Each structure stands twice: as structure tokens, then as C-alpha cells.
């Protein structure tokens, strides 16, 4: 801790700093340091002695001075802000000094005294280079005073020591405080403008955040304390990690058989045309499959196929296709973004964040990637989020933010279950892209998962208005209906979605890419309706038309 060294180091030890001495002398708690300052043995600088002789009654002044200083320092306000707010407190103290209103002669005296101390201003000036400090209003203070005051920063150090004495509980807080202070200092040295936003984010929320921190701490403590079940827990933690680290090998994309688009002259063109005319996504996907089967290196066809399958609620097929696309072109922005979203849906968080990182570095190569020392999911998430925030901040003044960056941030916040922020991101992206049905659905899904299914349903309807064949939005609509207990509506939406999976392929031949999520959810809905007869029908195969006499879809 560089700062601490500088403060406690021999060069600027408190011996030669009269102001610190005042503090020490009138502070009972610092018994561990007091022995250095036995009356009579003080070897304060010449400035200090002249200071004393010149004003015999200064000790009374001292007393008031130091007392005032302490009364107004942040000691009384430990719990919330700890050391990280010391700059603020420092200003308060400054103001207090103003109030003392030294007489001009006293002022002069002080100034002269303090100027003697100027020799060890090394860290001091370095410290003052910190733009944060410079930005704080140091007006109105006589210059010498200010310098001297900077030197007396020992109190920050004292403050820490004092807090530690107060026992275990407080110690934690101190550590958090001084740690974030340290971070701030480093960050400020590195990049000033970067710093402020991060700090603001940290400070947001206040008390409740604090509580949340403690709560999650309890949560963690609880995990580690549980000895007898530790083995089990370890294995479950391992599972989670494994899930995040395993290289996602779903294998090659599997094409449907008997694809009649293989006879088509230009299946890619045909697929695009079908998409425009509002043909079901399953049909469109077949056309793109055929295009790829004719030319496996057709990058565009892979991306189109991946996006289509995702919208068609066939996530696994979508991931396979998009992985192939990214393999062909690792810097294609839409492919990377779609892949990241698909990974997020399947809870492959680590992969999702790494894919987003590729996206942001491909789009904004200027943004520096911080080296990743630890490959755990949380740190990856934080790192990538920081990159996106940086890109967001770098947007030129007055110009609308890149909506894609907003979407990326939305996905990141969604991944960390920070749903409110994710909603904000998607909403602001929608401001520039009102007709993006994908975005409407993403907004809806975020709302739904944050416990607002009613609002979600509105967003899904908007998406379906724009794109009636959007199976995923229909599936999500069904899920929301299920979660709020409207089982009949849920069944109808899910059946409607399933009916869109019917294609021109001969009935009875088994499909390669099916949507298990749709069927599972429908199964669950029937269960909730206490209709096992319907589930039997569903399991016995056959198409969804058999439900048409009971449900409208």
C-alpha cells in the first residue's frame, strides 16, 4: 500500500509534522502511538518550536484546533462510508478550519511554520496530481495552510488503525473501505474519467446495497460453514463450474431429411423470399439448410439459419449453426451477438460473456482488454461489462448511443440477474429501433424473469404484431401465462407455436431438430390443468391438430 508507506515512512514521520502532533496529543485512543510523543522528548522541526514560542497561548488554540478537527472528521460516520469517502470528509474539515478564522498575524505565523515542513512533499505532490483531488474545491484557503494540511493526512492512517481496534466486525468494514479507496487511487492514476463512473456505480444504492452485501455474505458463509454437506456442495459447485468451462461441443448441425428445397435453384434466395412473405420459420429454416447443403462455406446462410432456428425456439440447432458461422468468420458482429444470446438462454454464462467480449473487441478495437488473471464466471462478467460500459461512455457527445452496445449490456445484466438494469438497456435500444421484434421479445423475457409477467405479455404482443411467425415470442407468451396461472391460454399459445413447426415434410418421418422446451412446457401446462389424458395424447405422438377441437390456436 504505497500511500500508507509514504505516510508512515520515516521521511514524513509524524515527528516533524506539528499538525499531526496536535491530533495525537488530543486523541486518547492512539495509545499505541503515544509513546513516541512523550512530552519533552518531542523533536519537532524548528518551525514547530518557533511556532510555539511565538504564541504562548497557542496550546489553547491547539486544543480547540485538534478537537475541532476530530469532531468533524469522519470518525463518527464510520459505518456507511468508511474511508472511501475521506475526500469528502476532508473538505468538511477544511471548512471547519475556515471557521476558526485565524487572525492575520496568526495566519502568517502558521504559514511560516508550515513552510518548513515542505521538504517532504514528495508523495504529497504526487497525490495532488490526482485529478480527483484537484477537482475538489480548495478555494479560499491560504496556500501554505493547504500544503500543511495535505501533510497531515496521517489521520487517514490513524483512522484506520483506530477502527481496527474496535474489533472484528468493524474491521471488515474498514477493509472494504480502504480497499476501495486503494482501488480508487490506482484507478485515478490510470484513467481519470474512467474512475468517476465506476465510483458512482459503487456508491449507488447506499444502505440497501450494504445490507445486500451482508446478506450475500451470509449466504456464502452458510455454504462454507456446512461441514457435513461440504462434499455434496463441492460436487455441486464443481458441476456449475464444469457447466461453464466445458467447451461447448454440441457437434455438427444436423440437417433434416427429405428437404424439398434441395431441388430449388437458389434456396437461399427462396428462403429470404419465404421470410418476407411470412412463411413459418420451420419452412424458412429448411430453405437455408438446403442452401448450406449445397455450399457449406456459405457464411450468410449459416447466420440466417442460426437466427431462424433461435427465433423458432430451437436453441440447440441455433447454437450449432451459429458456432459454425463464427468458425467461418470470427469477427461477424450479428453472428457473435446472436450466439451470445443463445448461450445466455442455455445458461452457458462463461461462453456467453466471452462471446460478447469478442463482439465488443471486434466492433470497438480501441477498447483495451484488461488481461484476465482468473477465469471465473463472475470476473469474466465484470470484465466484459466494463468493456461495454467503456464503449458506451466513448460515444460522442450528443450522439445517440450504439443500440447494439445497449443490447450487449442488456444481455450482460440479464446474465447477472440485474433485471432492472437490463430492462433499461433494452428500452433505450428500442428507442432507436422501434420495429425490432427481437428486442421486444428480449425486453419481454427480461420483464418476465424479473417477476413482471403482465408487463412482459405486452412486450410479447408487440413482438408478435411485428412478426406473427415469431415462435419464441409465442413460447414466452405461453410461459408467462403458465406462470400467472392462466393455463388454458398458456396451452393455446404453446400449441400455436408447435403448429408452426409443421412443415411440408411428410408426416411421420422424425425431425432432427425439435423443440424440447415447447413440448416440455406444454406437458407441464396440461399437468397443471389436471389433464393427464391430454399428456398421453401428446406423448403418443401425432400432431397438434388433435387438440384443435378443444383449444383454439
Amino acid at each position, binding site marked *: 500500500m504505497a500511500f500508507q508507506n509514504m505516510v508512515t515512512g520515516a521521511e514524513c514521520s509524524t515527528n516533524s509534522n506539528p499538525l499531526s502532533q496536535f491530533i495525537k496529543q488530543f486523541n486518547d485512543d492512539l495509545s499505541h502511538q503515544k509513546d513516541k510523543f512523550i512530552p519533552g522528548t518531542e523533536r519537532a522541526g524548528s518551525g514547530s518550536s518557533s511556532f510555539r514560542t511565538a504564541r504562548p497561548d497557542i496550546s489553547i488554540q491547539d486544543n480547540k484546533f485538534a478537537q475541532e478537527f476530530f469532531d468533524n472528521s469522519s470518525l463518527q460516520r464510520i459505518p456507511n462510508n468508511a474511508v472511501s469517502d475521506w475526500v469528502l470528509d476532508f473538505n468538511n474539515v477544511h471548512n471547519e478550519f475556515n471557521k476558526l478564522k485565524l487572525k492575520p498575524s496568526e495566519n502568517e505565523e502558521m504559514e511560516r511554520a508550515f513552510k518548513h515542513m515542505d521538504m517532504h512533499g514528495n508523495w504529497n505532490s504526487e497525490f495532488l496530481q490526482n485529478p480527483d483531488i484537484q477537482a475538489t474545491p480548495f478555494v479560499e484557503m491560504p496556500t501554505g495552510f493547504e500544503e500543511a494540511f495535505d501533510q497531515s493526512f496521517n489521520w487517514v492512517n490513524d483512522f484506520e488503525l483506530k477502527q481496527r481496534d474496535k474489533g472484528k466486525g468493524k474491521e471488515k468494514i474498514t477493509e472494504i473501505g480502504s480497499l476501495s479507496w486503494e482501488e480508487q487511487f490506482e484507478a485515478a492514476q490510470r484513467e481519470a474519467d474512467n474512475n468517476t463512473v465506476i465510483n458512482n456505480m459503487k456508491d449507488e444504492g447506499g444502505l440497501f446495497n450494504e445490507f445486500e452485501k451482508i446478506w450475500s455474505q451470509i449466504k456464502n458463509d452458510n455454504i462454507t460453514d456446512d461441514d457435513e454437506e461440504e462434499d*455434496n456442495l463441492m460436487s455441486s459447485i464443481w*458441476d456449475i463450474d464444469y457447466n461453464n468451462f466445458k467447451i461447448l461441443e454440441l457437434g455438427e448441425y444436423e440437417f433434416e431429411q427429405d428437404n424439398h428445397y434441395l431441388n430449388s435453384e437458389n434456396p437461399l434466395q427462396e428462403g429470404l423470399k419465404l421470410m418476407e412473405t411470412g412463411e413459418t420459420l420451420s419452412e424458412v429454416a429448411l430453405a437455408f439448410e438446403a442452401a448450406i447443403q449445397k455450399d457449406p462455406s456459405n457464411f450468410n446462410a449459416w447466420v440466417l439459419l442460426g437466427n431462424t432456428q433461435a427465433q423458432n425456439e430451437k436453441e440447440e440447432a441455433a447454437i450449432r449453426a451459429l458456432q459454425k458461422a463464427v468458425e467461418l468468420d470470427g469477427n461477424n458482429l450479428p453472428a457473435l451477438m446472436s450466439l451470445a444470446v443463445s448461450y*445466455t*438462454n442455455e445458461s452457458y454464462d462463461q461462453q456467453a460473456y466471452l462471446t460478447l467480449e469478442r463482439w465488443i473487441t471486434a466492433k470497438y478495437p480501441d477498447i483495451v482488454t484488461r488481461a484476465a488473471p482468473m477465469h471465473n464466471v463472475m470476473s469474466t462478467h465484470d470484465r466484459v461489462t466494463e468493456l461495454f460500459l467503456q464503449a458506451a461512455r466513448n460515444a460522442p457527445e450528443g450522439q445517440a448511443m450504439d443500440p447494439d452496445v445497449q443490447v450487449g449490456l442488456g444481455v450482460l445484466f440479464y446474465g447477472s440477474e440485474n433485471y432492472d438494469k437490463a430492462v433499461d438497456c433494452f428500452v433505450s435500444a428500442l428507442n432507436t429501433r422501434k420495429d425490432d421484434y427481437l428486442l421486444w421479445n428480449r425486453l419481454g*423475457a427480461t420483464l418476465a424473469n*424479473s417477476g413482471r409477467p403482465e408487463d412482459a405479455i405486452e412486450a410479447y404482443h408487440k413482438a408478435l404484431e411485428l412478426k406473427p411467425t415469431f415462435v419464441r415470442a409465442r413460447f414466452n407468451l405461453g410461459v408467462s401465462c403458465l406462470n400467472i396461472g392462466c393455463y388454458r391460454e398458456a396451452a393455446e399459445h404453446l400449441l400455436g407455436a408447435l403448429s408452426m413447426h409443421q412443415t411440408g415434410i411428410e408426416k411421420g418421418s422424425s425431425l432432427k431438430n425439435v423443440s424440447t422446451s415447447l413440448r416440455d412446457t406444454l406437458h*407441464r401446462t396440461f*399437468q397443471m390443468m389436471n389433464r393427464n389424458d391430454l399428456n398421453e395424447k401428446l406423448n403418443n405422438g401425432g400432431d397438434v391438430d388433435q387438440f384443435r377441437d378443444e383449444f383454439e390456436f
Partner: protein
Amino acid sequence: MSVKVEGFKSSDVFEQLQTSFTDNSIKQESIKKVKAIFEFNVKNSDGKEQLWTLDLKNEGSVKTGKGSAKPDITITLEDDTFVQLASGKLNGQKAFMSGKLKIKGNMMLATKLDSVFNTAKVKAKL
């Protein structure tokens, strides 16, 4: 066996939980995550009380009334609060802070409530 009890909105949630546990993978995952027996003492607007036991330690089951084993935590709350918790409109810590949950037993397990309800829900997709 149905866990539905007339007059309680919560009973839908318990039914959903029960239904979700018919999927073995969801059941095993929930047990792995939670490893505890919850007893819910729910009061409805008519002042009636009803017990449900959610065993996510051994069986992965939902029952009305007391379970065979001793619960690790007993949570007393109102019907509406339960529904809000289950739908994610209210989170466990806020409910606890505002005194809407009365807890007996291992209090730390209350922090797992959110994940209990989450596993039972089908997630929407981006």
C-alpha cells in the same frame, strides 16, 4: 396426490412446484441446490392457516401438512406474501426485512427461497 387447498392462492404455487418435480432432472437439481426441508405456515385472508412441507433434502416433494422428517426451517407468512415471493415480485430479503416472514429454525435457509421458486418456473428466453 394434489396439494391444492381451497381458499389459498399459494396452493397454485405448490402445485407448480410439485409438477416441476415430476421432471427428475429439475428435482435433483433443486435438491442439490437447497438441501433442506421447508415448512410453510400460510395464513389466508380469512384467517385460516394451512401447512405445506417442501422437502428438498431427501424426497424432492411437496405435501400438505407436516412431513415425516423435522423441518430445517419453518416460515410463517401470509398467502399474498407467498404468492409475491413465488412470482419474484418480492424477494426473500426484502420480505424478511419488512417483517413479512416469520422464521423459525435455520434462518440462513431463507436466503435460498428465491432459488427454490426459480427452479420451479419455466424461464422465458431472450
